């Protein structure tokens, strides 16, 4: 990882994932044609033809796209069909969308599994789905050309029809059966961007109508004939175990059908969820909490500090940062720390399972169909191929549903009762049994030469490895977890001696991927410290960054746009202060300028200006929506977000003590998309990471206080 550019860094991360194939089997890059020429069984159409894994065409000319990524708000339900439809030659608005089952054709080549995460969906699909769409189009053209006894190259397509050189027309439905029997063309030409009809144009989200009338089906809404409902008693302390269970009172409650001991707690199964929950609350359980009795915030931080004394695994090294710091005329050093965070998806974790003698159906809002299938199979005592995963809409994901910890108990309860069971966590279950964003303790140093040039930069990161927990074996000993060093190893500033290293240190609880993952940890440190260095050098933070980004045009352009749009060259209004942050993540370049005031010792965020270059956009409306979304997600975390642990127990439980942004607390957000013909970058996550450093840099401008820990609420700013 010697190249300083963010783009190269991102490729390195992908290479790691490709070679390690993170746990979920090999890569399937070729188009799956297993379903080729096999009629499907979609109800309502007499015959359905599958020309590849994403497309079904009915003889009634219905067209269905199988969306192989999970829709959790980020827009794949619209974006992926748009990419496919562009080459297929059909208006995306007339294509029906269904969620794909688990299957090898749907592996995300950037992550090595059927996974929706890492802001990869569009990047992974960009070539793959356009190619698949173009191949299907060519098959349809060839089939039609044969009907007309002409050549496919002489035909063209227009919104679901093939048109002959003489203006004859055949619908896709009319030629689909013949097309599916033809050999798939290996080489297909993809449209140039100048020919795009739908990609990059304003287009409505296809899932909006179902989300304004209550008809969209989320995990919590799944209803099966004869279904029972379950509530789960989980240990109130991390890693706890039930020593004894007295379920007599619970079993006597109205509607309670059974009490099932599962691998993750005691499930009470009833005729309705409310009855199940009442039954759960009537269980008398003695818990053994000895495993985590000593776990608390202070112990976690002490452990991180002690681990930080070790030397780390090198993630990026150029020149000799240690030597340059020793020789520097002036050295600035700082320590930063970050808290645990919960995801708090609006839909608590939920899974519906139906186990039968030789099959298991799971209906689940998941970001990882392959892992869902695997854990359901293990819980049911079946082979993965016997498990069918039905993906629902997700009531928020944010990385929480990359974990599958909520699935086995539903399967086990269904197996024990012989009925379909919907197992729903309470909000309290959800906050206290999350897979938390890891805490971090980082030390950072910068060295200036006698002329005031920044000549050395060293970031020493300490924290747990998410990837090692979620994908055991995927991070070999001595290797860096690529999801621990984001927004650090791709440090973009032109400094001759750079060292980034990382000390893996487990903290005694399950950590998980949380929107923007380590970007949100490391961007806070790196970009807060850039301000510290600028001010130490007596420079304006924007001018200091611009000078060191002279060789990074994409970074510099978004910074310049954000500065211009925020009015940075003019003084802020009286009592208002500004702060900057810059980052590349997910192949997207971004700068934010936050504008704040301090009122009664508390920060009030008035405005956030965000400029970004995410390469080719698929749906500009969704890009802007994702930036707004990610900024507010980052704002909640920056201002208030922390999970505290005392005696092994998570202290927060619901939205009264895990505060998130509400309508009356939303700043003005302005998003400026810088045009670029680079391939698409990810957009669901990056904007989250810049919010905290931009705000904290503004707080320093207002108060001269440098906040080196989050959330902001920990600090009295009066």
């Amino acid at each position, binding site marked *: 990882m010697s190249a300083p550019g963010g783009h190269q860094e991102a490729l390195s991360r992908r290479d790691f994932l490709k070679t390690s194939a993170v746990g979920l089997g090999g890569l399937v890059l070729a188009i799956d044609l297993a379903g080729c020429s096999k009629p499907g069984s979609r109800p309502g159409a007499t015959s359905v033809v599958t020309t590849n894994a994403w497309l079904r065409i009915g003889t009634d000319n219905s067209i269905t796209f199988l969306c192989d990524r999970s829709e959790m708000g980020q827009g794949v339900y619209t974006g992926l069909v748009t990419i496919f439809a562009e080459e297929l030659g059909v208006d995306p608005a007339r294509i029906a969308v269904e969620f794909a089952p688990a299957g090898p054709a749907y592996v995300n080549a950037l992550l090595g599994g059927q996974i929706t995460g890492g802001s990869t969906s569009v990047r992974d699909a960009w070539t793959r789905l356009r190619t698949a769409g173009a191949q299907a189009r060519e098959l349809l053209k060839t089939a039609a050309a044969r009907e007309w006894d002409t050549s496919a190259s002489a035909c063209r397509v227009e919104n679901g029809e093939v048109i002959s050189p003489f203006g004859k027309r055949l619908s896709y439905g009319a030629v689909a059966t013949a097309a599916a029997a033809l050999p798939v063309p290996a080489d297909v030409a993809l449209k140039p961007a100048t020919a795009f009809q739908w990609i990059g144009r304003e287009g409505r989200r296809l899932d909006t*109508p179902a989300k*304004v009338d209550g008809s969209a089906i989320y995990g919590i809404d799944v209803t099966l004939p004869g279904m029972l409902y379950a509530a789960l008693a989980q240990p109130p302390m991390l890693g706890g175990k039930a020593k004894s269970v007295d379920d007599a009172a619970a079993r006597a409650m109205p509607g309670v059908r059974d009490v099932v001991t599962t691998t993750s707690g005691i499930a009470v199964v009833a005729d309705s969820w409310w009855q199940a929950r009442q039954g759960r609350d009537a269980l008398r359980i003695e818990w053994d909490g000895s495993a985590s009795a000593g776990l608390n915030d202070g112990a976690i931080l002490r452990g991180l500090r002690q681990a930080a004394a070790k030397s780390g695994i090198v993630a990026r090294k150029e020149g000799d940062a240690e030597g340059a710091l020793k020789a520097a005329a002036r050295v600035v050093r700082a320590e930063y720390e970050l808290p645990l965070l919960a995801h708090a998806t609006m839909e608590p974790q939920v899974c519906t399972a139906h186990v039968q003698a030789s099959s298991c159906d799971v209906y689940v809002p998941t970001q990882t169909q392959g892992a869902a299938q695997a854990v359901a199979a293990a819980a049911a005592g079946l082979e993965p191929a016997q498990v069918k995963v039905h993906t629902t809409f997700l*009531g*928020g994901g944010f990385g929480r549903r990359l974990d599958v910890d909520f699935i086995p108990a539903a399967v086990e309860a269904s197996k024990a009762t012989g009925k379909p069971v919907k197992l729903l966590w309470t909000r309290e279950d959800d906050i206290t049994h999350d897979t938390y964003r890891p805490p971090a303790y980082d030390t950072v140093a910068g060295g200036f030469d006698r002329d005031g040039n920044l000549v050395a930069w060293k970031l020493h990161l300490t924290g747990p490895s998410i990837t090692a927990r979620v994908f055991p074996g995927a991070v070999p000993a001595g290797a860096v977890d690529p999801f621990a060093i984001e927004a650090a190893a791709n440090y973009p500033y032109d400094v001759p001696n750079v060292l980034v290293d990382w000390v893996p240190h487990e903290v005694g609880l399950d950590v998980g991927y949380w929107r923007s993952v380590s970007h949100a940890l490391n961007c806070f440190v790196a970009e807060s410290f850039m301000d510290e260095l600028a001010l130490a050098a007596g420079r304006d933070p924007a001018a200091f960054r611009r000078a060191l980004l002279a060789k990074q045009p994409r970074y510099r352009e978004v910074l310049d746009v954000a500065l211009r749009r925020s009015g940075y060259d003019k003084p802020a209004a009286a009592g208002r202060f500004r702060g900057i942050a810059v980052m590349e993540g997910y192949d997207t370049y971004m700068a934010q300028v936050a504008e704040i005031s301090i009122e009664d010792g508390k920060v009030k965020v008035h405005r956030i200006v965000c400029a970004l270059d995410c390469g080719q956009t698929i749906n500009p409306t969704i890009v802007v929506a994702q930036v707004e979304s990610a900024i507010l997600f980052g704002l909640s975390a920056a201002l208030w977000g922390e999970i505290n642990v005392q005696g092994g127990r998570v202290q927060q439980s619901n939205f009264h003590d895990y505060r998130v942004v509400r309508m009356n607390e*939303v700043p003005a957000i302005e998003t400026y998309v810088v045009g670029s013909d680079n391939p698409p970058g990810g957009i669901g996550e990056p904007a989250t990471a810049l919010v905290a450093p931009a705000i904290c840099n503004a707080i320093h401008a207002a108060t001269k206080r440098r906040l080196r820990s989050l959330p902001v609420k920990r600090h009295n700013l009066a």
Partner: protein
Amino acid sequence: MLTLNVNGVDRSLDVDPATPLLWVLRDTIGLTGTKYGCGMALCGACTVHLDGQPVRSCITQVGTVGTAKVTTIEGLSPDRSHPVQRAWIELDVPQCGYCQSGQIMSASALLAQTPRPTDADIDAAMAGNICRCGTYQRIRAAIHRAAELGGETQP
């Protein structure tokens, strides 16, 4: 047995009157558009109307509803034609969408009371509805748009 008027239909229900209205709507009647988010009236995902007033159905015992008319997202309009639904579609408000039934029910109650709400009115009426996707800017714009659409249909 108790009788509940939901979306204009009287229903006889054999449920414990202490059951929260939310779970009667969802699990007994099968109207799943109304969502569970917190169970403590903290997030607003379960908002429905009782005689036009927004209430959190997760803490409203069904036995206390009496003869009040319950309106859920499914009963707001038969065809997504309510001005709030039209504005939500026009501005592509939802992301994950899970909270949006509650948002729409709070917004439609606000507009029924205050046909031309100010931003301060919107803050006051909507602060009880959490959206983790952060669609608030669009919700605000869509409420203003729905006010225009409502004005068009009621000259």
